[in-house]
């Protein structure tokens, strides 16, 4: 089945939106319903309602670099009219107008929200501003796509999620891996047990740069480099961890019960207030662990998530999986290498058992049969548009985003307090995928 799937993926043009939908539908068909359990939000693409003739009036609040990145996908989508943008930084406005020249420009987002024509908003502003904007947008009846992390603290996240429930508007968060075909496929395999029992998840996001943006005047430092200051960001945990922690819980199908971690400023001592390196441990009730770390003074290992199973390992960023058992070297080569060892090495440990384990490199297999060439951002924005047009919230999408944010903020709190913290059950929501509906019932 996998082989035929790989053949099929090779011949399709994955850049085409219609093909992407087709692709996801076929994933569902191939999965025989298991896909619905591992990635229930994909049901949005199976919606029977024909939305081909409809256009969503969208406003973008915060068309900075991330906002514009998403706008490029939305601007190509025939079902979207980006009718307005709101920002207080003129260079961002100017660059956004190059993508959507006819969009109305607002300096105050509240005026954008007051526009009755606008049905949905994309919020890509600094972290500390998400809460108020999203709450106001939902009160105004707008469907909301909010970049991660959704709130500055756990309480804000909970209130935003509750507001989404009480208003009934569509709520998406910027967790693009949820719509990335290689993650979807590999999670289906993980949950099918293809890689055996998943024993650990390791993830890291390393860079070697100061994470600074150019500042035209000193007074704009905190405004432009908001990621580096405590008042507006929680640094690596809220900007990077959010994506990868969600991958871990997606793979393990549950939430951790304990977290501990440490962060410090070791290298970039340039006045920043947030850590330049972080290590965290998330511990599950069965003893399994999820490690997440980030270092921005060394990029050798780059960015990756590793899902470690008893039978195989997945590295979804590379788009590959590797099985533990691989065919050994041909006997003839094993014999020649052993002779080489006997002749040229005086070490005592060389032997057939050692050679058999290390002789053949494990190059793994591509999850989608080829090297990954895109993430899920395009599909994520497309899904949001479909949901906003139909007014139907896909299962699990808000909940995954909510818990991803909670995990980051909870981890950050553990780092700041220097303690191992238990999961704050007051922030549990009804979400059966992680079994937290039971937590919620227990609390009640």
């Amino acid at each position, binding site marked *: 089945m996998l082989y035929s799937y790989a053949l099929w993926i090779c011949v399709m043009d994955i850049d085409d939106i219609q093909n992407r939908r087709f692709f996801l539908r076929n994933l569902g068909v191939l999965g025989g319903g298991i896909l619905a359990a591992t990635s229930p939000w994909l049901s949005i693409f199976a919606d029977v309602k024909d939305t081909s003739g409809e256009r969503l009036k969208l406003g973008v609040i915060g068309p900075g670099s991330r906002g514009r990145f998403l706008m490029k996908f939305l601007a190509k989508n025939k079902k979207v009219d980006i009718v307005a943008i709101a920002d207080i930084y003129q260079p961002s406005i100017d660059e956004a107008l190059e993508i959507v020249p006819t969009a109305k420009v607002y300096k105050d987002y509240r005026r954008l929200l007051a526009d009755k024509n606008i049905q949905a908003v994309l919020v890509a502003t600094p972290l500390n501003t998400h809460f108020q904007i999203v709450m106001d947008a939902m009160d105004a009846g707008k469907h909301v796509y909010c970049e991660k992390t959704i709130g500055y603290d756990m309480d804000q996240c909970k209130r935003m999620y509750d507001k989404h429930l009480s208003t009934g508007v569509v709520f998406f968060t910027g967790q693009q891996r949820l719509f990335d075909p290689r993650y979807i496929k590999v999670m289906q395999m993980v949950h099918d047990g293809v890689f055996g029992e998943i024993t650990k998840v390791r993830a890291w996001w390393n860079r070697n740069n100061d994470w600074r943006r150019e500042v035209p005047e000193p007074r704009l430092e905190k405004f432009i480099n908001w990621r580096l200051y405590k008042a507006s960001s929680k640094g690596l945990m809220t900007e990077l961890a959010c994506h990868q922690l969600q991958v871990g819980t997606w793979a393990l199908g549950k939430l951790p019960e304990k977290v501990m971690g440490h962060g410090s400023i070791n290298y970039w001592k340039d006045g920043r207030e947030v850590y330049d390196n972080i290590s965290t441990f998330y511990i599950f009730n069965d003893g399994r662990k999820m490690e997440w770390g980030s270092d921005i003074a060394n990029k050798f290992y780059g960015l990756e998530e590793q899902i470690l199973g008893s039978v195989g390992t997945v590295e979804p960023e590379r788009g590959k999986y590797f099985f533990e058992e691989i065919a*050994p070297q*041909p*006997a*003839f*080569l*094993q*014999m*020649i290498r052993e002779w080489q060892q006997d002749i040229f090495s005086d070490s005592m440990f060389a032997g*057939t058992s050692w050679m058999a384990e290390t002789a053949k490199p494990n190059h793994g297999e591509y999850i989608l049969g080829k090297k990954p060439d895109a993430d899920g951002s395009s599909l994520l924005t497309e899904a949001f548009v479909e949901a906003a047009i139909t007014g139907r919230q896909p299962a699990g999408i808000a909940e995954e985003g909510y818990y991803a944010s909670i995990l980051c903020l909870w981890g950050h709190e553990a780092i700041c307090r220097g303690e191992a913290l238990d999961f704050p059950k007051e922030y549990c929501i009804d979400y059966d995928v992680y079994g937290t509906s039971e937590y919620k019932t227990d609390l009640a």
Partner: protein
Amino acid sequence: MKDILITRKRQITELKVWLACLALSVVLNIYAIIAYEAQWTELFTSIGFMLTASVVIYIILLFFRIVWYGVRRLCKRR
């Protein structure tokens, strides 16, 4: 420059030597398959390794043969 003539007899001799090297490689492969408990299909799938090994053995043998002929020729001259 002088033409080098390889006689028919010499060609047959070299072919026989190389075939002996190939046979040795096959025997070594059979030994390896038994010793490492590998599959017998490796008799065919490792044919490339055996061919390579036969050439390597032939070259090593050639070196010793040249040395041998050289020494013998030297002794005869004396």
